[in-house]
C-alpha cells in the first residue's frame, strides 16, 4: 500500500527509558515494526548504532525524542542538542515522546543546567528549537500510552490532519480529561469519597489527590494493556501528562479551608461549590455501600 516505509529514529535524552518500555507493550508491535523502519532505537533491533548516528549522516522521516534535554547532557561525548538539531532538521515530523521530552518532567529537577522539554519548560515555551515547532507533535505521559504514540505515527503515515492543542498534543487523545470514562463518575457526581486505596467504590478527587478532572489524556478511553486504568483500579490519577508533573503529595488533595485547590477543568469556583453543596446535602445509600 505504501511504496516506502517511513524511517524512524528514536533518540533517548535524559530519560529513564520508561516510554521505550511502555512502547514494547504495544499489542501490535510486530505489525508496527513491519510497517515502519527503525533506523535507530535503543532497545529494538535497528540498522544503525548510536555511534553511526553521531558519525554518519543518516536519512530519517520521523524523529522520536524521549527524555528531557539540556545543553550539558551528552551521549557518547556528543551534546544531545547537537544530535537533536541534526536529525530534527532532516525529519519531516518530530514527536516528543513522554512528559520529560515535552515539558521537562521529573528530570527538570536533575542537576543538568536548563533541563527542559523540546519546546516547553513546564508550561512555558522555550526558544532553542522554536523553528522546529511547526513540525512537532507532543505525546505527554509518564509513560506514554503505547496506542497513542503508535496511532499518531500511523496518522503521520496516512498524512492525516491532526488537530493539536496548545502544547502540540493531538486533540484526538488529549482533548479529553482522564475523568472521561472513569468508572467512579457516579461517586464524583454525588461527592462520595473513597477512603481505602484499591477499593472499587468512591471518588478519589476529594481526599486522595486524584487529578483526573483537570488532567488531559485518554487513560480511561484507551485502557492500559486493554484492561485497566489507575483510577479504575483504585489509585488516583497523578496528572502525569500535565506540564507541571510531578507535583508533590500525590495521594492527598490540596485544599484550602475545605475547597480543593484545583477544580475540574473549566469549572468556576462558585459553580463547583453550588453543585457540591447540593449533592453534599443528600445521602445516596447505594453509593455508600460496597459493590460486592
Amino acid at each position: 500500500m505504501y511504496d516506502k516505509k517511513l524511517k524512524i529514529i528514536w533518540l533517548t535524552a535524559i530519560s529513564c527509558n520508561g516510554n521505550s518500555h511502555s512502547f514494547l507493550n504495544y499489542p501490535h508491535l510486530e505489525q508496527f515494526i513491519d510497517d515502519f523502519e527503525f533506523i535507530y532505537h535503543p532497545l529494538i533491533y535497528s540498522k544503525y548504532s548510536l555511534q553511526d548516528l553521531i558519525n554518519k549522516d543518516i536519512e530519517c522521516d520521523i524523529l522520536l525524542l524521549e527524555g528531557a534535554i539540556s545543553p550539558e547532557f551528552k551521549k557518547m561525548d556528543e551534546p544531545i542538542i547537537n544530535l537533536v538539531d541534526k536529525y530534527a532538521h532532516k525529519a519531516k515530523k518530530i514527536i516528543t515522546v513522554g512528559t520529560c521530552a515535552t515539558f521537562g518532567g521529573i528530570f527538570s529537577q536533575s542537576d543538568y543546567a536548563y533541563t527542559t522539554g523540546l519546546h516547553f519548560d513546564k508550561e512555558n515555551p522555550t526558544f532553542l528549537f522554536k523553528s522546529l515547532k511547526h513540525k512537532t507533535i507532543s505525546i505527554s505521559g509518564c509513560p506514554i500510552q503505547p496506542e497513542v504514540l503508535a496511532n499518531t505515527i500511523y496518522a503521520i503515515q496516512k498524512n492525516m490532519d491532526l488537530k493539536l492543542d496548545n502544547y502540540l498534543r493531538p486533540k484526538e487523545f488529549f482533548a479529553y480529561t482522564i475523568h472521561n470514562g472513569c468508572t467512579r463518575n457516579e461517586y464524583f457526581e454525588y461527592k462520595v469519597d473513597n477512603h481505602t486505596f484499591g477499593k472499587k467504590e468512591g471518588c478519589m478527587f476529594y481526599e486522595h489527590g486524584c487529578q483526573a478532572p483537570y488532567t488531559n489524556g485518554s487513560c480511561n478511553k484507551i485502557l492500559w494493556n486493554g484492561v485497566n486504568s489507575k483510577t479504575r483500579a483504585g489509585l488516583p490519577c497523578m496528572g502525569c501528562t500535565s506540564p507541571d508533573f510531578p507535583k508533590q503529595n500525590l495521594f492527598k488533595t490540596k485544599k484550602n479551608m475545605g475547597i480543593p485547590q484545583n477544580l475540574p477543568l473549566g469549572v468556576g469556583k462558585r459553580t463547583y461549590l453550588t453543585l457540591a453543596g447540593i449533592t453534599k446535602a443528600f445521602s445516596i445509600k447505594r453509593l455508600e455501600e460496597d459493590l460486592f
Partner: protein
Amino acid sequence: MLTKKEQKKEKIIRNALLLFAKNGFYATTIPDIASTLKMSVGNMYNYFKSKDILAKEIIKYISAYLGSKIKKINEEDISTKEKTKKIIEMYFKTAMSKPEMIDYFLRIYLSNREVFLDGCEGMICVNEFVIEVMIYFEEGVKSGDLRDQDFFSAFGLFMGYLGGMVFLKGENILPKELNDYIDDITYNIYKALSV
C-alpha cells in the same frame, strides 16, 4: 428585570419576612400576611402554595441578599483583614437596617428546623451566603493570611460570633451599639483565624 409576578412575589416575601420575624413562624398565618398586603388569601396561594414553601423562599431570599453583599467584598482588591472588617460591618449594618433578616435567620430558620427539613436539606437554602463565606476563607488561606483548617470550625467561629452579638443586641443586653464593637470583633476574629 423582574416580571410583574416576580415583583409581587418579592413584595410578599418582604412583608411575610417582617411578620415572621416579629411574631414567629407558627403565630403568623397566611391570612395575616395577605391582610398586610391587602390581598385575598386565595390570591396569596397563587404565589405560594403553602406557608412552609413561603418560609423556604424567604430564607433563600435572605441568603441571596447576604451572599451578594459578601461577593462584592470578596471581589474587592483588599487584604483579608480588610475583608474581615467589611463583612462584619455589612452584617451589623443589615442587622440594624433590616433586623428582620438576621432575626429570621436566627429565630425562624435555626429555631424551626422541622419546617425546613424537606426542601432545605443541608445548606441548600443558604447556599449563596455559605459559598461566599467559603470563598472568603479559601482566598484568605491562599493568600497566606488565614490558617488552613476545617471549614466549619472557622465558619462557626465567625458566624456564631456575629449571630451571638446580634442576638444579644436584640435582647437589649448589649450596653453599646453594634457598630461600637466592630474594631474589637474584627481584631478577635482575624487573630483567631490568621496564621
